[in-house]
C-alpha cells in the first residue's frame, strides 16, 4: 500500500523519470505532469498528498502554478515543494511568498528530497500515511 500520493511536475522528462523511480522505491504512488496547467488539473482531480513543483516551465511557471494551487480551496492544503535551478536567496523568498512549503535547488539529491517529503508528510498527515 502506498505511503501517499505525490504529484511530480517538471517539463524535463529525465527529472520526472528519476523521481518516479526514487519515490516509487520509497513506497509512494507517483503521478506526473509536464507543465503548470496539467499540474493544476491533476491536483484538482487526484488530490495528491504532496506536490513537487519545478519552477522553470513553459506557459505557466512554478510560481504562478503555486499561487493558483494555494488560492483554491480544494488544493490549498496540499504541501508544495519547489524544485529549481534558481538558487538565489531572492528566488527562494519569492517561492515562500507564493505559499510554497519548501524549496530545493537543483542539482539535488533525490535521497534528500525523499527525506524531506517523508518528514513533511510525517508531520502533516499521519492518518493519511496509515490509510
Amino acid at each position, binding site marked *: 500500500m502506498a505511503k501517499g500520493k505525490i504529484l511530480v511536475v517538471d517539463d524535463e522528462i529525465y527529472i520526472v523519470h*528519476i523521481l518516479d523511480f526514487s519515490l516509487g522505491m520509497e513506497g509512494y504512488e507517483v503521478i506526473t505532469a509536464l507543465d503548470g496547467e496539467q499540474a493544476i488539473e491533476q491536483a484538482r482531480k487526484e488530490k495528491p498528498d504532496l506536490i513537487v513543483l519545478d519552477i522553470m516551465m*513553459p506557459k505557466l511557471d512554478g510560481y504562478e502554478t503555486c499561487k493558483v494551487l494555494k488560492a483554491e480551496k480544494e488544493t490549498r492544503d496540499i504541501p508544495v515543494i519547489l524544485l529549481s*535551478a534558481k538558487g538565489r536567496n531572492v528566488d527562494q523568498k519569492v517561492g515562500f511568498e507564493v505559499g510554497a512549503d519548501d524549496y530545493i535547488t537543483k*542539482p539535488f*539529491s533525490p535521497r534528500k528530497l525523499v527525506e524531506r517529503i517523508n518528514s513533511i508528510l510525517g508531520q502533516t498527515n499521519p492518518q493519511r500515511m496509515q490509510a
Partner: protein
Amino acid sequence: MRRRRKGPSDAEIKLRSDLRRAHHEIDKVRKEGESQVGHPLAERVQELERIKERLSKLYFTQLDENRRRAARLHEILRVLSEINADRELETLVDRIARTIQDVLGFRIVLVRLREPGGARLQAVAFAGLGPSAQATLGRQAVDVDDFLSWLRPDFKVSHSFFISHRHPFSALLPDGYVPELGKREPWEWHAEDVLLVPLVDGQGELLGYFSVDDPVDRMVPSLETVELLEVFATHAVVAIENARLNRQITRRTRELEEADERMNEMEELKTRFVSTVSHELRTPLTAIRAYTDTLLATGVDSLPPAKLQEFLQVVDEEAQRLTRLIESVLDLRRFDAGNRRARRVPVDLGEVVEEAAGVLQRTAEARGVELKVARELADTCLDADRDQLRQLVLHLGSNAVKFTPSGGQVTLRTGGRSDMVRLEVEDTGIGIPEHAIEKIFDRFYQVDSSLSRRHPGSGIGLAICKSIAEWHGGRIHARSLPGEGSCFSVQLPRSSAPRVVLRPDSGLSDSVRNVLRLGVEMVAEVLDAGAVSMMSVEEDGSLVIQAALGLDLQVVREARVPVGSGVAGWVAVNRRPVCTSRTEESKVPGSGRASYQTGTFLSVPLEASGELLGVLNVTEPKTERAFLVEDCHLLLELAETIAHAWSAGLATDARQAQVDTTQQALRTVLNHVRQSRRKAPGRVALARAVALELGLDPNDASTVAFAATLHDVGMTMIDPDLVEDGRPLTPDRKQQIERHVELGDRVLEHLATMGAEGVELLETMQGVREIVMSHHEWWDGTGYPCGLAGTTIPVGARVLAAVDAFESLVAGRPHRRPESAETALEVLFGLRDRQFDPDVVDALQRAVARGAWTHAPAADDIVAGTGR
C-alpha cells in the same frame, strides 16, 4: 562722496584760481568799506559773474560726461556678466562683436580666434560687415606669426595697436576689408586706419584679436576707449576659454556617457550570460546527479540490468550535453578573442556548401527531412576564411534540419551578384515567432527554453554565425513564418575594398582628411581606376600626396613634385586639366613608378573660389582602354565637388556641420556608385552616347553621364533587398520605391548646398537633380513622382529612363533572364510614346548600332560575376 577723477584740466585750474582770486577781491573790497563803491567794482562783479557761469557750465559738462561714462561702464558690466554666462562659443563671439559695436561705438568689428593648437587665426564673428565681406575675410586666415609682426612698438596704445593710415607700414598690411568712410579731416579716423586689440590668455599665449573700424564719433581712439576695449578683451578671453573648455567637457561627457552606456550593456549581457550559462549548466548536472545518486542509494546489485543500463545511458547523454555546452562557450570566447589567425583566401562558397550538405545528409535522412542544394550562380568565389565559412554553413544547415519535422525540406542555396555572394538556408520547419526574430542572433537567446531540451543547443550558434558574417564584412538576417518555415540569408562581399592611404603628419584636420579619402574612393569607383592620388600644395608651391589608392605608404610619404615640374606640376601652375594616353608622359612625377598598364593618365586641378588646393591624378583604368575626354569631363565635375568640400573643411568649426553633411552625402553617393558601377558600367557610356546622338552638347552629355552614375542614389537609403529579391511589389513597397526618387533629390541637395560660391557647380547639380528627380516619369504622363509628360520631362531624365530600361533588360534581374540587345530594343520600341520619348528610343538604337553598348561586359558575364 568725493571721487578722485582724472584730475582737473588746466582750464579748470585757471578758473578756480580766478574764482579764488575774485573771492579774495570781493572780501578785500568789503573790508575796505562801501566807500569804494563805484565803476571798477561793478565791472569786477560782472567779471566774476561771468567766471562763475563758465565754471558751472564746465562743471555740468563734466558731470554729464561722467554720467555718460558711468552709463557706458554699467552697460559693459552688464554685457560682460551675460557673456560670462554664455557657454556656447558661437553665440559668445557674436555677442562680443555686437557689444563692441553697440556699446563701444565701433561700427565694424572683426573677431579672429586662433585654431586650438593651430598657427592661424580664423574669423569667427563679424559686426557691420556684409556677406561678401564676411566671405572674403572668412576665407583668408591670418598666420599668427604674421599678426605678431604687425604689432610694432610704434603703434602701441596701452596694450593695443593702432596702425595709422599715414604710417608707411600700413601699406604692407594684407588687403583685408576697407570700409567706405567718405572724406575725413586729417585728425579724424580714416578708412585705412586699423586698431587691433590682441586677446591674450593667462599664459601669455595669443588667443586671437579684435579688429575695429569706423568709430561713431569719427575720432582716432582715445586712451580711455582703448582701455575700455581692453577690459572687454580680458573678459572675452576668459569667456572664450570657458566656452571652449565647456565644449570639450560636453564632448568628453558625452563620450563618457556613451562608454558608460556601452559598459552597462556589456554588464547586462555578461550578467545574462552568466545567469543563462549557469542555468544551462545546472540542467544536465541535475540529471547526472539525480541518477547517480539514485543508483548509489538503490545499490547497483538491486537494480534490474535494463534499468541500470537506462540510468547510465541518461548519465552519459547528459554528460555529453554538458560537454557540448562548455565547448560552445569556449568557441565563442575564442571567436571574441580575435580572429587574428583567420586568413582570407579565395574560397568557392558553392563548394563549401556541397561539403556541408554531405555531412548533413545523414542526419537529415535519419529525421526524414529532404536536403537540397541549389546553385544559382556559376561563380560563387569570395575572399574568406574557409573554416569559418564551413562552420557557418554547417550551423545554419543543422539548425534547419533540427527544427524541421519529418517530411519537410531544407534547401541550401547559393547565389549572388558581381560584388557579393549570398547563402540562403531555407526550411519548412516550425519557424520562429515574430517577437523573437530580431533577437535570435543575440548570444544565448533561445526562443523557448523547453525547445532546447528536445533540440540540444546552447543559443550561441547563431551569435557565432553573425560574428562570422560580420567579420567578413557581410551580414545575416532571417525571415520566418511560424508553422511554415524559415529562411536564413547571409550576404558576404566578394572581396574587401582596397584601402585608401592617407599622408601621415599632414597637419590637415580630420574632417578634411575624411573628405580627401572619400574623394579618392569616389573617383576610383566612378572612373574605374586602379591608382588615384590627391595632392596638396605646400607653402613653397610644391605638391605632396595627401591621399591615394593603389600607391603604397612609402610613395605617399616621400613623393614631392617641385613647382611646375612634371604633369601634376604643370597642372598646378596652369590650372588646366591634362588627359594623356601616351606612355612617355605617364610617369607620376616623384612616385618612382615608371609605367602603367595602358599609359593613360588624367590630372586635374582642385580649385575652390579661385584658390588652388591641389591636384587630382588618375591612372590605371581597370577597363584596359585609355581615358577619353569624356572621362576627363567627369573627373572635372568630381574635382569641383571635392574641392568645395575640401575648402569647406578648411574653414572654421562653424562649418563642421556642413562638412559632415557633405561627407554623409559623399558617402551615400559613393556607396551607391559602388553598387551601381558593379551593376552596369556600360550604362554611363551608353547614356553619354545617346545624349550625344540626340544632339546635346558635350557638357550636357557629361551631366547626363554623371547623373547615370548617381541616378539611383535614393535606392541606397532603402534596403537593397527590397527591390532585388524578385518578389512581386506590394503596394507598400511600391510606395517606398516611389519615395526613393525624392530621397535621391535630398541627397543631391546636400551636394548642391556646400560650396555655395560655385554657381556653375550649383547649376550642374541642379541639372543632375532634375534628372534624378524625373527619371521615373513616363512620356505619356503616368509616371512618378509628379506625372510629368512629354518634353516637360527634362531630356536627361528621358535618356536615363530609356538607358536604364535597356540595361536592365540586357543584364537581366533576379527574376528575369537577360535578353539580347535586339530583343531589348524591340521592347523599348513597343513602349515608345507610352513610357519613352520616341526620339530618345531612336537615338538609343543608333547609339547601340554604333557600338556604344559594346564597352559593357556581355550580359552573361554580369550574371556570372566574372565581368564587372
